[in-house]
């Protein structure tokens, strides 16, 4: 089976999963106690008012009709209108997406850049101070609740030292790009943006830095004991090549797999990180939507996240197949 077909297969599976996600999200609303009316109607609304609202929301129709409408609308990219703001859910959700992506990407970059060298060093300098340092750091990292870490970081770096903003998102990637031509000085914009991104990225990234460090270390140790390492050295290849071209590459195979499974944790982490830093992203949106029972927004967010998760997993599979040609054969 070729690379293309392999990905195609994954893609088809992905579509199935997305459909599942959509359906679950729809069902979720009907097994949930309480009616959307509670959201839309004011505290002391009259029963007549509530009745009218029910009709407006089409809650009076049979379930399957609502489901089919829902699917049909979704296919046209319509996620309904926020019960709270009457703004199309698609608009409201996709407005929040960049902030969250920014956060997740920044965290991943932090994680990868730090963790891989750290893992390699710790594996190749086994039982040396560097190894112990890296190991303790990673243990601490996977054991610290990131919201608490975030609070502590804010306390130290924002409140006490006042070197980073305490919360919120300044500008953002797109605005920073715009600033190249825009009226505002590019440098100030970018620094402000990165400054506001720094603490959240660290908060979200730490767990993954630690996790990947652990994975790389243990995987590297396994690989180093493989026969081909000795054979590769036997032909006199420079150690750098042995470690990074041969060993690390094979180490990354299991690492990538685990990370694929951990994407959920990344998004979940993003949600709570946003809560800590009042970061205006999907996470904040979801929590707001849940507390306000703003169903269209909640459903929209969950669908976007689910779909994103599926897409990312396809990417991971592709990467996986690239790293380990054997998987395509299977």
């Amino acid at each position, binding site marked *: 089976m070729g690379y293309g077909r392999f990905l195609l297969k994954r893609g088809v599976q992905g579509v199935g999963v997305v459909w599942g996600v959509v359906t679950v999200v729809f069902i979720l609303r009907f097994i949930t106690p309480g009616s959307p009316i509670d959201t839309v109607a004011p505290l002391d609304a009259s029963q007549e008012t509530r009745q009218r609202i029910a009709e407006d929301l089409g809650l009076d129709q049979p379930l399957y009709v609502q489901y089919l409408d829902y699917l049909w609308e979704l296919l046209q990219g319509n996620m309904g209108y926020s019960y709270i703001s009457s703004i199309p859910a698609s608009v409201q959700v996709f407005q929040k997406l960049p902030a969250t992506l920014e956060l997740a990407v920044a965290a991943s970059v932090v994680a990868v850049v730090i963790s891989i060298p750290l893992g390699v060093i710790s594996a190749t300098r086994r039982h040396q101070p560097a190894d112990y340092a890296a190991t303790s750091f990673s243990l601490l990292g996977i054991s610290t609740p990131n919201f608490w870490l975030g609070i502590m970081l804010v306390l130290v770096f924002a409140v006490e030292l006042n070197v980073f903003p305490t919360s919120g998102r300044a500008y953002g990637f797109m605005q920073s790009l715009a600033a190249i031509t825009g009226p505002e000085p590019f440098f100030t914009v970018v620094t402000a943006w990165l400054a506001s991104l720094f603490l959240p990225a660290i908060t979200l990234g730490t767990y993954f830095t630690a996790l990947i460090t652990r994975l790389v270390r243990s995987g590297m140790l396994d690989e180093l004991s493989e026969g*081909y390492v000795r054979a590769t*050295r*036997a*032909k*006199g*290849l*420079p150690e750098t*090549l042995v470690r990074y071209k041969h060993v690390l*590459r094979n180490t990354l195979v299991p690492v990538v797999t685990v990370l694929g499974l951990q994407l959920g944790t990344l998004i979940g982490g993003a949600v709570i990180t946003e809560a800590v830093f009042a970061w205006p992203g999907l996470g904040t949106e979801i929590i707001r939507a849940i507390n306000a029972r703003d169903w269209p927004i909640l459903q929209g967010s969950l669908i976007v996240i689910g779909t994103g998760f599926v897409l990312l997993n396809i990417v991971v599979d592709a990467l996986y197949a690239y790293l*380990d040609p054997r998987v395509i054969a299977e």
Partner: protein
Amino acid sequence: MSETTSGTERAGTPTGDGAPEGHPDDVLRVRDLSTRFFTEEGQINAVESLDFTVRDGEVFGIVGESGSGKSVAALSLVDLVDSPGRITSGEVWYRDADLADEFRDDVPEAVDGEFVDTRRLPEGVRRALRGPAFSMVFQDPMSSLNPSITVGEQIAEAVEVQRRARANPRRTRSRTQGYGMGRLIVDSLLPNRGYTSESSMNRAIELLEQVGIPDPAERAHEYPHQFSGGMLQRAMIAQALAGEPDVLIADEPTTALDVTIQAQILNLLRDLQEEQDTSVVMITHDLGVIARMCNRVGVMYAGQIVERGTLSDVFDSPVHPYTEGLIGSIPDLDDPAPRLQPIEGNVPSLLDEEMGGRCFFADRCPKAMSDCLQPIPEYDAEPGTDEHAARCVLTEREYDEADALPPDHFDRNEEVRGDE
């Protein structure tokens, strides 16, 4: 084939420094090489003061049961013993005039005539010897090639190493041979850039052809899992030949293969050896292979060469009871009457405390005598050529029931013993 004059000198006799005396054709002289593993269970003497020599264009065989330290010996030669193992003593004298000149002034103790003691050379130089001087063919081809890199690429790497090595003088060679992280990252980021070059890839394909792989150009771009075991071993050999080594160390090259393939591989090895006049160290537990390939043989037991000599010395007139036992354990096709008498007992654990100063074979030896309970030096063995020598008292005296050890002698103080 060996018209040697200086027969009586034993290459093994420790003379302190300088290369041991030996045959003029010697390309490799190993003396008193010991490799130990320091594990939680204790110290394991995998290789115990090993002595042997390898001559130009010959095939020297090392035979022994598994666990007798053959493979460790091989790795010790190319300095690839991983922790917790360490080469604790010994010298590996390798004949290379240029190298000798280069280090005569800097490291005089490492140089003797045309010979250099690789053990005394700086690490970088030692590693640089892998490929052009020594290269290895490993036991299991499947696990000895990187599963996620194409076969061609891996061979090309071996070629490339030597190409670059020739490109810049050995002295200036850094640990990474001028190929550090920076280069690596750049190469891996930019497309069509890598460590290996076009030319080295073509060379790799030639090599594949040379080792008899059909349409090598295509196969070169396949991954190890797409190769059969035999094909892989051929590829391994191609990779080993990439550096045009003086000494090719083949560690159980055929064990992992099935019989029909074994023959092909052995033929291949012999052909290549003959046309390139490489010296080969053939390590195996299979006397058949030895008989087929080797000029001279060393029988290895418990980390030592217990008997050595020309093929005929060892096969036709073995002295050491262990050798006898080994030979005895091959089925003789001429004589239908089965005279299979496998050696009783197991290879010793090689644990330092359990070995003690005695003939390590004594506990299994049918002819063990009280003399065997002291360290045994290497004696000339009468029968056969001057090459013939053995670490066994029987070279000096006849077996005598009188001083035979009681059968339960070792039961008292040793766990490792024959199961009667």
